[in-house]
């Protein structure tokens, strides 16, 4: 995927990336790793975020880590694509402003700030960096998502107010979470305190505006995408596959296969599809469209998979049918699983989400016996065991064993 790298002299070359939060709405997938490490295609979301920064000319990355920090550290190590990474630890997750404060000894001068769990086109980063002249600059996107991400009230390109939870659909511009700041943001954060367990970054921006600092907005219509719920990983992967943002060579139109993957000559790949290193696709399997098969995973013979995200080290037994399925790392799925796909009504944290297209979510290291069936919208917690022939409905807790 590496895009053409561009840089400009005035654009900040340091970036802070917030990757400390768990992303609780993505449970049960976040049992062992934070949301930035969940798969977007075959690579962690955070890898795409760092790619965007580096493609925008960033050469100094500061990662704020917290929840399951070791997963981030061991994945990226001290450098990524030859760019040094400095890690800052947020011991308790007290909001985005508090997270940023952990990196105050990091960048010198102006710096970029992005969320580690949202996928962004590198051109958004470039335009924010290029426009950065005042105390703060942020990217705004037009769309109905303002309710979820906070609306931005502008006068020209001057930010008047950030509205956390806009009451109505009046606001069309929302905050994309891509910023550039001077060191003033740290000074302002220092004057604020954690209230009700949280110090959000937006409070500091609001304070900057109140203190008559000039905060500017850059409108962008480049690609920006977030996964809020487990099933959003399917649409995220779909978007990335469509754009070819995958880290494997193309062997045909929309078909990306790593050199170290093994695809049986009698298997069929239907693009868009990506197969990562050391993955195995056995004879007769039909994989795709919209399938992301992670490193060292196996798709058994005769299986039919479309609209799936299969993370690393997972084995799918022969003759499985899986549509709209998310499977985590290290799962063992027996022969003949059926996950026929949505739509479903999914209950998550006492909230009902209607008409979700979801065949099922299987968290890390789940063991599923042969011939099991997932009713649409099924959620299986990590390290659960599902017996042979079981029909799974609704939710199965972490570590539990379901025999029938």
């Amino acid at each position: 995927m590496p895009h053409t790298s561009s840089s400009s002299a005035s654009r900040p070359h340091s970036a802070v990336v917030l990757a400390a939060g768990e992303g609780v709405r993505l449970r049960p997938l976040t049992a062992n790793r934070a949301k930035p490490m969940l798969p977007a295609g075959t690579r962690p979301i955070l890898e795409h975020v760092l790619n965007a920064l580096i493609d925008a000319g960033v050469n100094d990355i500061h990662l704020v880590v917290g929840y399951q920090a070791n997963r981030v550290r061991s994945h990226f190590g001290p450098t990524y694509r030859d760019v040094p990474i400095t890690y800052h630890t947020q011991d308790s997750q007290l909001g985005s402003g508090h997270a940023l404060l952990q990196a105050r000894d990091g960048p010198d001068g102006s710096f970029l700030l992005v969320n580690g769990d949202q996928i962004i086109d590198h051109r958004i980063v470039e335009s924010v960096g290029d426009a950065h002249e005042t105390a703060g600059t942020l990217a705004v996107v037009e769309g109905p998502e303002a309710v979820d991400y906070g609306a931005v009230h502008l006068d020209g390109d001057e930010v008047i107010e950030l509205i956390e939870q806009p009451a109505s659909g009046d606001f069309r511009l929302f905050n994309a979470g891509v910023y550039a700041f001077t060191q003033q943001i740290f000074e302002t954060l220092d004057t604020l305190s954690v209230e009700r367990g949280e110090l959000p970054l937006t409070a500091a921006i609001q304070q900057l505006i109140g203190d008559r600092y000039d905060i500017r907005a850059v409108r962008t219509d480049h690609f920006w995408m977030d996964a809020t719920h487990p099933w959003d990983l399917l649409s995220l992967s779909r978007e990335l596959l469509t754009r070819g943002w995958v880290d494997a060579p193309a062997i045909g139109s929309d078909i990306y296969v790593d050199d170290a993957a093994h695809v049986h000559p009698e298997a069929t790949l239907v693009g868009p599809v990506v197969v990562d290193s050391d993955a195995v696709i056995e004879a007769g399997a039909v994989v795709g469209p919209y399938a992301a098969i992670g490193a060292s995973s196996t798709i058994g013979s005769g299986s039919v998979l479309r609209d799936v995200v299969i993370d690393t080290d997972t084995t799918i037994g022969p003759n499985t049918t899986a549509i709209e399925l998310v499977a985590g790392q290290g799962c063992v799925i027996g022969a003949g699983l059926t996950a026929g796909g949505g739509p479903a009504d999914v209950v998550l944290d006492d909230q009902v989400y209607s008409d979700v297209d979801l065949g099922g979510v299987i968290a890390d290291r789940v063991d599923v016996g042969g011939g099991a069936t997932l009713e649409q919208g099924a959620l299986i917690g990590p390290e659960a065991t599902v017996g042979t022939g079981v029909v799974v409905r609704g939710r199965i807790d972490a570590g539990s064993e379901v025999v029938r």
Partner: protein
Amino acid sequence: MCGIVGCIGRGDHTVDVLMDGLRSLEYRGYDSAGIALGPSMDVLRKSGELDALAEVVDANGPTGTYGIGHTRWSTHGPPNDRNAHPHTNETGRVAVVHNGIIENYAELKADLQATGVTFTSDTDTEVVPHLIAQALDAGADPESAFHNTVDRLEGSYAIAAIIEGSETVYAARQGSPLVVGVGDGCTYLASDVPAFVEQTRDVVFLKDGHRVIATTDGYTVLDEDREPVDVEIETVSYTAEATGKSGYDHYMLKEIHEQPTALRQCFSGRSDALEGTVTLEEIDEIPQPNAVQFVACGTSYHAALYGAAILREMGIPAEAYLASEYALSPPPVSLGTLVVGITQSGETADTLAALRDAKSRGVSTLALTNTVNSTAARECDHAVYIRAGPEIGVAATKTFSSQLVGCNLLAEELVDGPRDLRPLIESLRNLPDDVQSILDASAAEELVEEYADSEAYFFIGRGTNVAVALEGALKCKEISYEHAEGFPAGELKHGPLALVTPETPVFAVVTGDDERARKTLGNIKEVQARGAPVIAVTDGESDAAEIADETLMIPETEERAAPVLANVQLQLFSYYLADALGRPIDKPRNLAKSVTVE
């Protein structure tokens, strides 16, 4: 065992370049360090870690436009300021750094003392500056004085020297590693590439007998007869990676957590799970050996024990030898014997000596190493890389895991005959996630709270798990300084059982449910009868978890893969034990990462 650096052509940056170089060579030793600079002939040296020298450097502000440096791991003489390098002659007109051992130093020293020279250190190195000075006094020019001196040395050495009045860095290699970095208008010398990789990636790998004369005009490589030799400049692909701790408290913990990635890299592209075959392209053409002799030291020796065990199971006579013993009492070889040296760094002097001995007897040699272009890789007939990535922590962790996978790949490639390798490939392919699951949920840290004040720690296992028991004990003693021993479980009753008391926890590595596992259960009861608490490291297939007092669980897998997983639990226990005891985990006392002296 030491690290040396040198540079010329960097003007005012010389001190910084030398200090940065030494910092990246600290893995080779950290008992003392020093630098010497020309033309000032300023010499600064200090016992202790490099930071101690850095303080002295900051305080004294030495000047120079070329120089040499050294970080020491003591062989001759205790680690103090007096024995720190660089060493000089009496007047300070010659300064020398040296890695290796000068075997005839006693004789040379006696000769020098007979002429009235006073020695100020206990080192073998100090003969070198005195010999150079003596040659200069006799009228030789600096270059001839250096050559005349090197001609008289016996043993293994990499040497760098500066001489007053000569704007030159002189160097020689014989048996210890030395590489030249070729910069733009400048030249670097070092024991290992990372010392100057941030300055240049163009490298000349010197051979034994080579000498280097580096000036501001460039460098010349000469042979023992002082004739210029043509050398090849290679561009190394090292990135400056490897140096950071990624926010971990210790390199060791970082490297333990890097094992899923390391194992993935080691295995990637080397098998075909569809066909059930393993391919090591590097050694595709090697015929099946009649016998395999492994030579290795320390942790690598434990990997060798494992490798020999799996080859024997496949019907190939195979033995693991301690490299330091092998060259002195070499076992018989025949045509068709393959000698495999396992060495993380590829520079381990004992292992190199054993491989050279094997080669001199006409048998084929193979290096299983982590370091591309290392001496072992270059000298052996074949090299297989374990691709674990750089390992900085002195206690080997991820490279051991990758060595075990490397042994499996090696064995499957070497031994002919149709076999269905799919179950093995599946288990090796699953190792990254299996290791990750241990890292996500290990109980080792909690166990430390219970057992941190024990008198001793014992580790037992059978079959390939003997290697795990020995490695578990070695890791424990290396970094925690606590008494720890590993035994084949059946040997306990033949002696070591006398050491077992209620104050000595016993770690029993029990995987699978075969006869070895069942017999180990008997050994668990044996030690429990003496009151010792037993921690079972087990996959739950046998009754070990039920019998033992505590368990460290590992996922179920194939027999060959289980030792990798069991070892990860023991790594974590040793790490947290050493951490609880406040030990300097990345730099345990008296040890060095790769030992380049015999």
